[in-house]
């Protein structure tokens, strides 16, 4: 353990530090933009990004992942900030952190297995759309200068990398910021700048307990926000951890990551920062820049803080258009463009789940609601499919005037109506035998359906007997672990 910890920290020092610097530069405009989304001073997002990146480097479960202030969490704070102010946001941030730690101890990360690929794609697409929409206030009712600057900024961001040599060394988003700032400053163009959006950090952060009454009333105000932040933060963090696991072909400790996100948020709240979580885009930039260890996130946090504290006077005059250009890049980069093509090729149900997730998120501005919707719809589709795995054979024996039904397959809440409808109640027979030994009753709805069938048949005057009920109802016992063994699974898939 000590050795792997050493490897995590010191296994890639040069790569991690370089990547950390690249990430820090990319984090600054995002942290400012997300502060503006949340409706707080840029310094709130910048302090948060420092605290979260720094703390998660130590306590996180996924080396190489970058966490900071994020759009996903910022979007959830808007009304809290508007109605109650910054101090309540800080309390909500700390409480969200506590909830995340609890979630970690409760192993809630295991529920990530319910989040399908379609839901994840929907999550990212919705996030991209929301980031883009958050830029619209900067682009509506403004002079043509803003459009020209934004377009120029996007041009620099996407074309600069094609320049020989320097295009491969210097981060184009940074060049965009420097170029537009210089242009606006020297030509004296009157456009909004970051300084107009609120305070920037001018000192190192200090430890502060939020100035709110600690009572139930406060709790009632912040709890719903904290819950949303905690859930969305963990969702994005665990999703990102999965992406990084896949990219780097390594494992991460998801439980530790949940707790780590919690600790990071508490730390952020205590130095006047907003809540955050892992950032998919930044984490990918980190990996692409060669960051693999814990040192890269820590470097990103420290470099970010140093840059903003010492450069706050320069940051103030950066035009918002430069920032908007960066955020449009982030939005375009976050959106899963191939998912549009896949709409035609993927199963309709998968597309429906993805689109439902996007629609609900864009509508509610809460990624958690979208994810829940996606999971729910996905589960319904799955139940629908499983209910097709059932049929009934029937035979009539003239000698004994006996109708026998042989039930095969899965009977549960969604297939029980179909089960009931497959019996012929109008047939006048003396005896009915229902053989269920190759069927599986998964829930009490299924059992009730069988009861209903028996009663209906009895009313028609038949003597009903059931064969193999014990085997069929084994699945009722909720002991799913029993079915982990191949022979048990074989029983269910192949009949008893």
């Amino acid at each position, binding site marked *: 353990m000590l050795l792997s910890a050493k490897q995590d920290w010191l296994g890639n020092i040069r790569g991690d530090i370089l990547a950390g610097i690249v990430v820090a530069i990319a984090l600054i405009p995002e942290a400012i933009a997300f502060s503006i989304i949340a409706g707080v001073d840029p310094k709130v997002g910048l302090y948060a990004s420092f605290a979260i990146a720094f703390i998660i480097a130590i306590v996180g479960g996924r080396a190489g992942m970058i966490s900071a202030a994020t759009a996903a969490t910022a979007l959830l704070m808007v009304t809290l900030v508007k109605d109650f102010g910054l101090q309540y946001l800080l309390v909500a941030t700390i409480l969200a952190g506590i909830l995340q730690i609890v979630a970690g101890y409760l192993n809630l990360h295991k529920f990530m297995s319910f989040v399908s690929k379609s839901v994840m794609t929907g999550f990212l697409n919705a996030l991209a759309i929301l980031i883009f929409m958050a830029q619209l206030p900067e682009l509506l009712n403004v002079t043509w200068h803003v459009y020209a600057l934004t377009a120029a900024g996007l041009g620099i961001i*996407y074309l600069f990398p094609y320049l020989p040599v320097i*295009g*491969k060394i210097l981060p*184009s988003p940074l060049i965009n910021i420097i170029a537009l700032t210089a242009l606006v400053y020297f030509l004296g163009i009157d456009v909004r700048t970051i300084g107009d959006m609120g305070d920037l950090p001018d000192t190192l952060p200090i430890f502060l307990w939020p100035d709110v009454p600690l009572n139930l009333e406060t709790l009632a105000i912040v709890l719903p926000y904290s819950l949303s932040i905690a859930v969305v933060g963990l969702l994005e963090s665990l999703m990102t951890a999965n992406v990084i696991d896949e990219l780097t072909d390594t494992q991460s400790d998801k439980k530790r990551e949940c707790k780590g996100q919690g600790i990071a948020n508490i730390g952020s709240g205590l130095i006047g920062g907003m809540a955050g979580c892992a950032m998919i885009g930044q984490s990918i930039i980190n990996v692409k820049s060669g960051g693999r260890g814990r040192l890269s996130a820590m470097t990103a946090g420290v470099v970010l803080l140093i840059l903003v504290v010492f450069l706050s006077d320069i940051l103030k005059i950066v035009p918002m258009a430069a920032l908007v250009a960066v955020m449009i890049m982030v939005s375009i980069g976050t959106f*899963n463009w191939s998912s549009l093509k896949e709409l035609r090729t993927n199963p309709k149900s998968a597309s429906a789940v993805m689109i439902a997730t996007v629609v609900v998120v864009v509508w509610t501005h809460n990624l958690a609601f979208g994810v829940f919707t996606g999971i729910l719809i996905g589960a319904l589709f799955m139940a629908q499919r499983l209910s097709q795995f059932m049929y009934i054979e029937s035979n009539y024996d003239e000698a004994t005037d006996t109708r026998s039904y042989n039930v095969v397959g899965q009977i549960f809440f969604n297939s029980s109506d179909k089960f009931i409808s497959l019996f012929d109640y109008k047939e006048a027979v003396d005896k009915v035998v229902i053989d269920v030994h190759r069927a599986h009753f998964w829930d009490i709805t299924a059992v009730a359906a069988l009861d209903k069938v028996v009663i209906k048949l009895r009313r028609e005057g038949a003597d009903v007997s059931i064969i193999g009920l014990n085997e069929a109802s084994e699945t009722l016992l909720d002991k799913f672990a029993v079915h982990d063994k191949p022979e048990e699974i074989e029983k269910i898939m192949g009949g008893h």
Partner: protein
Amino acid sequence: MTTIDKKCILACIDGSELSDAVIEQAIWLANNSQSPIKFLHTIEHSHLSEQVHHVGTLTPNMTENLLNELTDEERTESKRLIAEGKTILTNAVLRAEQAGLTNIIAKQRHGTLSEVLHDLELEIEIVVLGATGQNHNGDKKGLGSQLEEAIRVIHQPIVIVKKPFVVPRNLMLAYNGSPTSKKAIEIIKKDLFSTQLCNIHIVSVQRNIEDAQRLVEEVETALSSFNCIVKTTALKGEPVELLTRYQQEHHIDLTMMGAFSHGKIHGFMFGSFTTQMLLDGSSNFFLLR
């Protein structure tokens, strides 16, 4: 006897300087124990990419593109490492055949040495490892980067090779009365090292000489029925220093001792006796867990 029911002598080789010695040591052990010999080469992925871009731009479909790039890069690296390993293994198998062994297995696995040893633990009778590994560029520390972790994960005896192989003439047992050093007596009795042919030095270093004396007598009694040349020495003082000096003075070829009986935290705080012995010692080691 098939390879499945008989545990093997596992020789971990990576083509580094000491691999030759590891191969010879393992062949000799396999000959003595009549166990199958297995040569293991591990393919360790650095998961570090050479093609890094520091532009910090988020481009569309970046995840997929990056995943493809990294996969291609690692595939090339893996293929190269596998091919290299095959050559090393083929050479080792050839030498084992020349030495007259018949039950020879060559194995390649992905992962760090400790991961792979952990996976294979049940198949192992004795592991033979080089004290230094592949990427060892004259590091001051003198021990392979993966050695301690590897020793800690397995519970089978381990031979650490520090110098070219010779048939052991002088064998030292560093005895402190611990359960692992008692195991060593059993190993000696099994005659795994052709111990009857060599001098066995029983050395005990304790804080006071009476304890040391008592301990060496304990071993003498235990080995009394066993036909071999035993020389006992009881010493007082600092174990690592005295034991390594003894190794040099008596031209010890192989030192048997218990390893890492304390936890990692203890080792981290106080420094591990085992690590220090491996570092300073001049012989090969036979460690018991």
